[in-house]
């Protein structure tokens, strides 16, 4: 069975922990909230999946044997018909540390699938306004307004995470959604600080700004990849599940901003999640087509939330089309990777029966140190070529 099939199965059915593993890692120490615990598991082929840990019947068990971890699948008679070695992302050590100002580092950043996810302010602005997405794990938490983290603290946390080797990229979130800039102005000093101190790729997940100039600035300030997550394509369903997104921004602004950003950022670095199972499959397919036509990478989000995921058989045709659409529009598939709660177009190739060997090879190369260095160098070089400061243009024209 291809790992991505397993990823889908695990996302749908979840897994139980055997006693040894439960003891090793401790309950509630995983990536999810204590209400819906989950573990980030790395399947063969570096396929990440956020596995919901359940107590209900499921064919899957995560088991510990010595220092190793295995995924077991039991048949109807209780015998294991599948046994593969997996890796579990254990909480990094820096979660236990505090910054020099005394702030617990775990309140500033978390590690998800090799990404250091930083939320310098509150994590979700919609939940602050009482309008979180209904399926969202983050929004399900109690909304807490807190002061913005000092830049020095963020730098300290990034240094700790990189020093530990648990993350490669920095991924910024913001709770700001109703500003002209879509929240990027709030993140700008943090992004600038990270870029000044670390040679890394910076990703942001923010909200569409009101003017395209802010998208230009987002790229110019050093953001390498960007997501404005639409989540649901059907406007009616969007209004039902994502009250904040529909009320404060609206689908059209998401689509317009994504389309513009796809023209500014490198191919394959602008993506948007579409949650599987919340809207009819035809609507998700229309969303995939609309996004891919704009040069945006659609990602199939497999968040469970309140609504359980449909059976894999219902999802597979959608995922096959996810791959085919992105391929048809010639969008680079290598950039969006290692998502525990989403299936990327490149992962979805198996559902379309395609090997996509070139894209897989290129993505594989960027996992090596030299490949990652080249990717960062190319990203910097492209930015140097593309970004023009207006005042510099006047200077060069000697006006």
């Amino acid at each position: 069975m291809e790992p991505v099939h397993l990823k889908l199965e695990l996302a749908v059915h979840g897994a139980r922990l055997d006693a040894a593993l439960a003891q090793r890692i401790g309950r509630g120490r995983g990536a999810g909230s204590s209400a819906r615990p989950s573990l980030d598991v790395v399947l063969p082929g570096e396929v990440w999946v956020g596995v919901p840990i359940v107590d209900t019947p499921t064919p899957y068990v995560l088991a510990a044997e010595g220092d190793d971890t295995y995924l077991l699948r039991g048949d109807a008679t209780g015998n294991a018909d599948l046994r593969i070695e997996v890796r579990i992302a254990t909480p990094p050590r820096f979660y236990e540390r505090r910054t020099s100002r005394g702030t617990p580092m775990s309140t500033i950043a978390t590690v998800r699938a090799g990404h250091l996810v930083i939320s310098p302010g509150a994590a979700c602005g919609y939940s602050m306004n009482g309008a979180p997405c209904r399926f969202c794990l983050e929004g399900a938490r109690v909304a807490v307004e807190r002061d913005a983290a000092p830049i020095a603290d963020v730098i300290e946390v990034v240094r700790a995470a990189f020093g530990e080797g648990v993350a490669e990229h920095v991924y910024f979130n913001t709770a700001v959604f109703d500003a002209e800039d879509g929240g990027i102005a709030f993140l700008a000093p943090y992004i600038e600080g990270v870029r000044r101190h670390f040679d890394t790729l910076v990703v942001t997940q923010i909200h569409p700004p009101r003017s395209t100039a802010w998208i230009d600035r987002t790229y110019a300030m050093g953001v390498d990849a960007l997501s404005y997550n639409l989540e649901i394509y059907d406007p009616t369903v969007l209004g039902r599940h994502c009250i904040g997104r529909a009320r404060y921004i609206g689908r059209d602004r998401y689509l317009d901003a994504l389309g513009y950003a796809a023209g500014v950022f490198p191919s394959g670095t602008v993506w948007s999640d579409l949650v599987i199972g919340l809207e009819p499959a035809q609507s998700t397919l229309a969303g995939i087509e609309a996004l891919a036509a704009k040069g945006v990478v659609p990602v199939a989000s497999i968040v469970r939330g309140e609504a359980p995921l449909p059976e894999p058989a219902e999802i597979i045709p959608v995922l096959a089309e996810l791959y085919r659409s992105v391929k048809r529009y010639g969008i680079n598939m290598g950039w969006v990777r290692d998502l525990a709660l989403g299936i990327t177009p490149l992962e979805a190739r198996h559902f379309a029966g395609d090997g996509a060997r070139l894209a897989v090879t290129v993505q594989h190369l960027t996992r090596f140190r030299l490949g990652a260095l080249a990717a960062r160098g190319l990203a910097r070089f492209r930015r140097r070529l593309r970004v023009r400061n207006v005042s510099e243009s006047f200077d060069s024209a000697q006006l």
Partner: protein
Amino acid sequence: MATTSDRLRGTPAEVVIDTRPLWRILVGRTYRPTVLLVGLAAFLVLRVMEPPAGLPPEGQKALAIFAICLVYWVTSVLPLMVTSLLAMVLLPTTGVLSAKDTYALFGNEAVFFILGAFILAASLMKCGLSTRIAITILRRFGHTPRSLLLSLFLMNAFMAFFMSEHAVAAMTFPITVEIARVLRLQRGQSNYGRALFLAMAWGTQIGGIATLLGGGRAPLALGMLRETTGQTYTFGQWTLAAWPLVAVLLLAGWQVIIRFFPIDIASVRDADQVIEEKALKMGRPSINERAIGFIMLGTLAAWIIGGEEFGLASIAMGAVVVIFLFGLLTWRGVEEYVNWGVLLMYGGAIALGSALNRSGASLWIASVTVTRWAHSPLAVIAMISAFGILMTEAMSHSAVVALLMPVALGIAQQFGIDPRIMAPAVALPAGLAFTLPVGTPGNAIAYSSGYLRLRDMLGPGFILVAIAWAAFNLVARYYWPLIGLTVGAPHS
């Protein structure tokens, strides 16, 4: 230095993302380093190659410096003044001239004359006298569409007799924009709008060649002439040599404008009101304006009467001292208007030109270029003026003079032409860029109004350029001998 976050928080710096294919951007971005390398390669190759027959070793070094400056001046990959500084550095380090000689040439009279002219123009603009003159002319003559257009054209030309043409264009542009606005002329559609801005651009250029004050070209040419031959022109002699060409071009320019852009409005009453309001706002001339007006007139008279005896630069500097003696201008006011970079450019160009002549390089260049193609002095003048008028369409006027003048002086020596001829033969055509917005700041300013499209300048401009070239050669052939400038025989 502003950080990104500072810029985002409301400061004016904006970014644009170039979304063209990367290879196209790369080609554009590699242009500068490529040209820089080409210039350097030209310098090195000329330095190490076997000297061609007739080129002395010192001339070969000077030629190498000339080549690198030629590449950088023509392509503007470095600011013009920085290329001049490069020449100043290379001349002593390669041993073409001693350091003492090189920097002494920087103190050429022409440089100080230009500085004086800049400061006098600054005083005119700072006190408002230049605007008053412009408004007075328009108020007096501009009551019909035709007379308003003609007075704008002539007023720009007249102002450029006394100030740098670029400064005149910058000064009269807001007035022209306001006239176009109150007359509700549609951008890209109104013939009258096109005519107004073309009249502004062409008027300043034609007026700019009339005297030594219209720009730095003529003083630069005179500086190089003086360094090479010891000869020069007085203020009156230059104006006398230039005025027929100015007259012909004013007439031809006016005809081209009204034929290409027939007047399509019936009344300029609204513009009259604006001009009237501006005049009302200015009130009576202030003491400062009157004083600076008197000093300016006195300076003009001194240049005409005593220019030869005392030197044009001395008179200009004297006028500047008088202005400061009476407290009519502050040094801070001067700094706002004086383009110090241009002075650096002229200093370096004069030093390089002198080095080319002293080393025999200019003579050698002449022998392998124009001398092969032209066989009579008149043909030489026709060819040099054609080069000048074509090059200036895409290059700085001063850079054209800096490049052509040393070669022209070498040619004069070969053909036995009076070298004095070469100063106007190079400097006058080098001031006539009528077709492209990049030709001169005046054109660029007019184009930026949005009333002119490129094709509005190309067609009419090409015709005026052709007329200018023909008129220049006719003037050189038939008129200059009447004032003692004989193309065929050396000046005695």
